[in-house]
Structure formats: structure tokens, C-alpha cells
């Protein structure tokens, strides 16, 4: 049979952001794949060098629309470490609350998108309906639905009043019930199971060799979570578990994410109930001393790392952002080979790709057939920033 090249993207209904796959198919089966990224390069890293620490945070927050708090927190965490500023416990708790609420809304969004990719629009509508409750909580606590702008160097900008804490706690039982419903739905719904089970399988060894992070790695049984392995904020003080799964496929990733929603809910509730008193910000100097730091953080999609170099002024000399999607892309390319065309949206969506955050690399796989058990594709070849 002749081979057909099916172009997917840069504009395609399955993709929420621009990316281009040139899928070479033999009938419905994918035999080769070419990934073209970096359609939405925005020059954020360079722009971050032009602004002082107060003005740079709203910019860093806009690296990603979904994990905005992640980027702002990982950045301010790094700067605070360079400055040697210890932020007060109340601020740490508030940052954790926002971070976990963000994880909940991100995973709910992902669940809806994954359901939509396999045509299960009912679950899509339901998860996004329930995600509203989380977004409402965030708006109530921070004033905005997505770009919370809660962080500042040395603490947080807004304190939580007792009435806010109460209102947030009041929303938790409903969410808890809904999350239970999702667990049941994902484990029982047959048509969805047939689309998720055994699709995009990634063994533990493969996940490790491709450097997968976040739920993608944890679904393959890699017990790696920055919150546990390199604790920051208050994650070493509060009770919570790393959710892992051994399935390694899209179904496993779904289970991990739903488990994490439940864990996050527990963390949020614990933090709200045990919110310590005291100030919400520590006095931070205007300028940071010269230094270099690699700040790590577990964003909803996986580990996000900021490399920051300061030079004694109120601006960074260099900030380099490694988003989790970048770490997961290579595993996607590997998973897709040998699968039917219909699995492309599911497998791509399964890593929860955030393409605009990632737009700083072009990955070109060298040609030839790549069977399922062939060695991993050559690493990134062309780097563009």
C-alpha cells in the first residue's frame, strides 16, 4: 500500500495550540512521524531580562496559562534562595494552597480534553463544569481565575481572611464527591477504556530513558515527584502521597491524574485548616547578589525548572525555562510509531502538552522506519531559542 502523509497541524481541531506533525501512514497505521515545534515563540526569556523583580513576575506568570502559579513560584523561589530570604510560614501555606488548586483545575481540564479527544463530550462538559468550582475558589482567594499574581519576592501579595478560608472549605465536599464520580467513570466506562487501555504504552525503562516527568513518568511506575524528592514550600510538613501507577498507558496517566486531584484536594483542605498566623511577606532586598541557581518545582504537568543567573542588580541576567512538556515530547514520538492514526490525538493529549510554554526547541527525528522496539530516536538535534 502506498504511504500517505497526513499533516496534523499547525491548525487542527485536535490541537489547542500550534504544533505540526507530519504523520506518514500505511493505511491507518503510523510508520513515521516528524515533529515540528516552536510555532509560537514569544521571547519571554529575553523579555524577563529587561524587567526588575516586581515587574518580571506577571511576565513569568504568563509563560503558561494553566500553570501560571507554577512558573511564578519556581522563579520567586529561586530568587529568594539567591537572596537568602526565608519566606514566612503563612506565605508558604498560601502558596501551597494556590499551587494545589492550580493542579486540581489543570488536571480537571486535562481530563475534559482527553475525553474530548476520544469524542466523549459528556465527560468533557462535566469536568469543565466542576472545574468552575476550583476556578471560583481561586478567584475568591486571589482575584483572578488564571493569572493569580499571588507571588512576590519574599512572600505573597494577598492574605486569606477567615471568611475566604471558610468559603473555600465549603466547596470541598462537592468537589470530593465529583472526583469520586470521575474515578468510577474512568474505571468503568467501556468505550473510553477501549480507547485508553494499552494506548501509548511506555515502560518504566523507556520512561526513564526518555526523561519523562510528571504524571507521564508516574503512570509508568517512576516514583518521581519534586514535591517529595526535593521538598519545597510545606510539602515535607503535610501528609500526602505520590500517586503512581503501573499501567504506563493513557489509562494509567488518567488514573494518576485523577488520584492527584484527590491528593491535591486533601492538601488544600489540610493547609486551609492548619493555616498558621503571622506575616505574609518577609522584607526582601531590591537587588539580588550575583549567583546561579536551578530552581525546581512540580507543576501539574511535571517538573518545571528555571535556571536563573543574577548579577547583583534588580534584574536577572539570564533565566532559562525548561517546561515539563519539553521533557515529555520525545516519549510521545516514540509512543506514536506503530499506532493507528486515530490514536494521535489521544497519545498527544495524554502528556497534557503545553506548546506555547515549550516553544524553544525544534526536534527533528532522523529518517527510516522505527519499529516499536527500535532504539529511541536521536535526541533533539536543532535548538532554536
Amino acid at each position, binding site marked *: 500500500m502506498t504511504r500517505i502523509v*497526513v499533516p496534523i497541524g499547525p491548525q487542527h481541531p485536535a490541537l489547542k495550540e500550534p504544533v505540526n506533525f507530519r504523520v506518514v501512514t500505511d493505511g491507518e497505521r503510523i510508520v513515521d512521524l516528524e515533529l515540528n515545534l516552536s510555532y509560537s515563540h514569544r521571547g519571554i526569556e529575553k523579555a524577563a531580562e529587561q524587567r526588575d523583580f516586581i515587574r518580571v513576575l506577571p511576565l513569568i506568570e504568563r509563560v503558561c496559562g494553566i500553570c501560571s502559579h507554577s512558573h511564578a513560584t519556581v522563579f520567586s523561589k529561586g530568587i529568594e534562595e539567591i537572596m537568602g530570604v526565608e519566606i514566612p510560614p503563612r506565605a508558604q501555606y498560601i502558596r501551597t494552597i494556590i499551587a494545589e488548586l492550580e493542579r486540581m483545575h489543570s488536571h480537571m481540564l486535562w481530563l475534559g480534553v482527553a475525553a474530548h479527544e476520544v469524542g466523549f*463530550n459528556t465527560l468533557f462538559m*462535566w469536568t469543565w463544569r466542576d472545574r468552575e468550582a476550583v476556578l471560583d475558589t481561586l478567584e475568591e482567594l486571589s482575584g483572578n481565575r488564571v493569572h493569580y499574581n499571588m507571588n512576590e519576592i519574599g512572600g505573597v501579595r494577598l492574605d486569606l481572611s477567615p471568611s475566604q478560608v471558610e468559603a473555600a472549605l465549603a466547596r470541598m465536599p462537592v468537589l470530593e464527591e465529583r472526583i469520586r464520580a470521575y474515578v468510577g467513570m474512568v474505571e468503568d466506562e467501556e*468505550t473510553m477504556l477501549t*480507547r485508553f487501555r494499552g494506548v501509548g504504552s511506555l515502560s518504566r525503562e523507556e520512561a526513564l530513558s526518555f526523561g519523562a516527568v510528571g504524571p507521564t513518568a508516574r503512570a509508568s511506575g517512576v516514583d518521581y515527584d519534586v514535591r517529595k524528592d526535593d521538598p519545597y514550600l510545606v510539602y515535607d510538613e503535610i501528609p500526602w502521597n505520590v500517586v503512581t501507577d503501573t499501567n504506563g498507558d493513557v489509562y494509567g496517566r488518567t488514573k494518576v491524574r485523577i488520584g492527584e486531584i484527590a491528593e491535591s484536594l486533601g492538601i488544600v483542605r489540610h493547609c486551609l485548616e492548619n493555616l498558621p498566623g503571622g506575616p505574609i511577606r518577609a522584607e526582601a532586598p531590591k537587588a539580588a547578589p550575583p549567583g546561579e541557581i536551578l530552581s525546581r518545582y512540580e507543576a501539574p504537568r511535571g517538573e518545571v525548572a528555571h535556571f536563573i543567573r543574577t548579577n547583583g542588580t534588580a534584574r536577572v541576567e539570564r533565566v532559562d525555562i525548561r517546561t515539563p512538556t519539553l521533557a515529555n515530547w520525545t516519549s510521545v514520538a516514540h509512543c506514536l510509531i506503530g499506532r493507528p*492514526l*486515530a490514536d*494521535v490525538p489521544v497519545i498527544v493529549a495524554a502528556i497534557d502538552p503545553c506548546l506555547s510554554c515549550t516553544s524553544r526547541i525544534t526536534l527533528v527525528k532522523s529518517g527510516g522506519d522505527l519499529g516499536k522496539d527500535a532504539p529511541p530516536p536521536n535526541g533533539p538535534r536543532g535548538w532554536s531559542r
Partner: protein
Amino acid sequence: MTDPFLLIAYILLFPGFLFLFAYSMTFEFLDRRIVARMQNRVGPPFFQPFADLVKTLGKEVIDPRGVDRPIFDAAPVVALAAVMTSFLYVPIIGPSPLAFQGDLVLVLYLLTLPTLALMLLGWLSRNIYAAVGGIRAVTMLFIYEVPFFLALMMPTLMAGTWSISDIMAWQEEHLCLAILQPIAFIVALIGLQAKLERTPFDIPEAETEIVAGPWTELTGRRLALMHLANETSAVVGSALIAAVFLGGLAFPWTVESAILSATVGFLLFLAKTVAILLVLSIIRAATARVRLDQLNTIGWKYLTMAALAQVGIVLVMMASGVGI
């Protein structure tokens, strides 16, 4: 109904094309509204399907480069015409005046034409998504058509006639066939869902995979007509199953006046088709799209086997004289 004027009125006005058009719009509204409510959404207002149709009819028709225009224009018309013709043989206010022995086969055949038109459109579009969608549509046709046909042949076996109106009349004297042949009824419902290309069988137009499949390059009136053909086949399919399995307009008690009797029959027809639509909507809302290779398994392993098992059961029932 030998009067030619009455016959023309039957074909064109009620319960012919005009009624079919209005009812298919209502049907689409109900479908969209019910699914919206299932998903906790508001859903469209009543006139939305009609407004959509008028709007798409008025849009510019765009020809893909190198397309065979006459066939590309004709395919949607053929699809719509086939579905509308098939509606004339389905009883709505009493047995169809055009009924003849074997009209069930004709209706089934005419209902297959839209899928073939869709395949043709996909193939002619000169677009990779449309071509893949067209191939998928015709592959799917081979999978669901066998159990669907088998399921609809079952009533003919039991009632001993190939005419839809006669099968309906047979059920007046006996039990309704959905009770006598539950497996065939379920297989027919699933087959209808596949025929209408609704989730979980919307493989040819899988939005997130191949954009819109064969519909990708359809614009303006071509899109409108093709869409209308799809909507009308939903009505015809539901009416067919209502007539063949649910006893159609038949009701056990007798009503004196002929007009009143026809009205009650018509209301029963409406109620039964809407009930079938409700089932189809629930299936649509409760499932994810399956893959083509998975549909292959479902179709041949389960649906066809179930239909064949029903054949055996019906033969045994007829031999032992149960339900007849």
C-alpha cells in the same frame, strides 16, 4: 388513496416531504437539546436547526481545486433524494399508500445511499482528511450493515411479509416485535446509531482526528443538503424501527372515527420515534468514539453474532409456535 391529488399531497405535503422536513428539524432540535441537558448545558433554541440550514444554504460554495464539479454537486442531492424517497414507504398515518411486498428492502437500500454519497464526496474532495474519512465511512458500512440488515430481516421472518406496513399490521394481532425479538431490536438500534454516524460510531467525521472527514470540503448548499440528508435519515431510521419493532401506529383498542384513529396512530408514531431518539441520544452522550479496528471487533464479534443468534431463536420460536 387512488385520487392522484391526494397522492401528490401525501408525497409532497403531509406526511411527505414537507412534514419530513419540519419533523427532521424538530428531531435535530430535540437531539441537540436533550444531549445538551444531559451534559448540563443549555442547548440551542427551537429554531436553531432551521436557522443553521438557511444560513449554510446562503453561504458561498467553494470548489476545491481540481474537483469534479457535477458529481460533487450531485452527490448531496442524490443522498437527500434517496432518504426522502425512502420516507414514503414508512407508515405514518396508517399504512403507506405506496406499500408493496419488499418495500423494507427498498428502504434499507435507499438508506445506504447517503453513506455511499459521503464516500464519493470524500474521494472527490482531493483532500487527505476527506479521503481518509471516505474510506472510513465505507469500511464502517461493511461492518454495521450486516447485523443491521439481519436484525431488520428478523420481523419479516416472523410476520411472513416483506412489507413494512404489513409487518406493522401483523403486530396489531400479535405481541410487538421488540418484545418477541429483543436482541434484534437492540442490534437494530445500535446499527441505526452507526448508520447515522453518531458517537460512538462517528469515526468517519472524527473531529479531533481527521477534522471533519468527508465533510471537510463541503460548503454552502452542499453542506446544507448533506446535513439535511443526515437529519432526515435519522427520522426515517427511527420511523422504520418504530414501525417494524414497536408496532408503529398500531394500538390494541379500537377508535370509532377514522380520522380520530389516524390521529391517535400519528401521535403514537411521534411518541415512539421520540422515544427511539431518546435512546440514541443517551448512547451518544454516554460513550466515547471507538476506533475503526475496535468497531470491527464489536461489529463482527458481537453484533453479527447476536443477530445470528436471534435468527436461530426466531426459527426455534416459529417451529414451536411461540408468539405466533
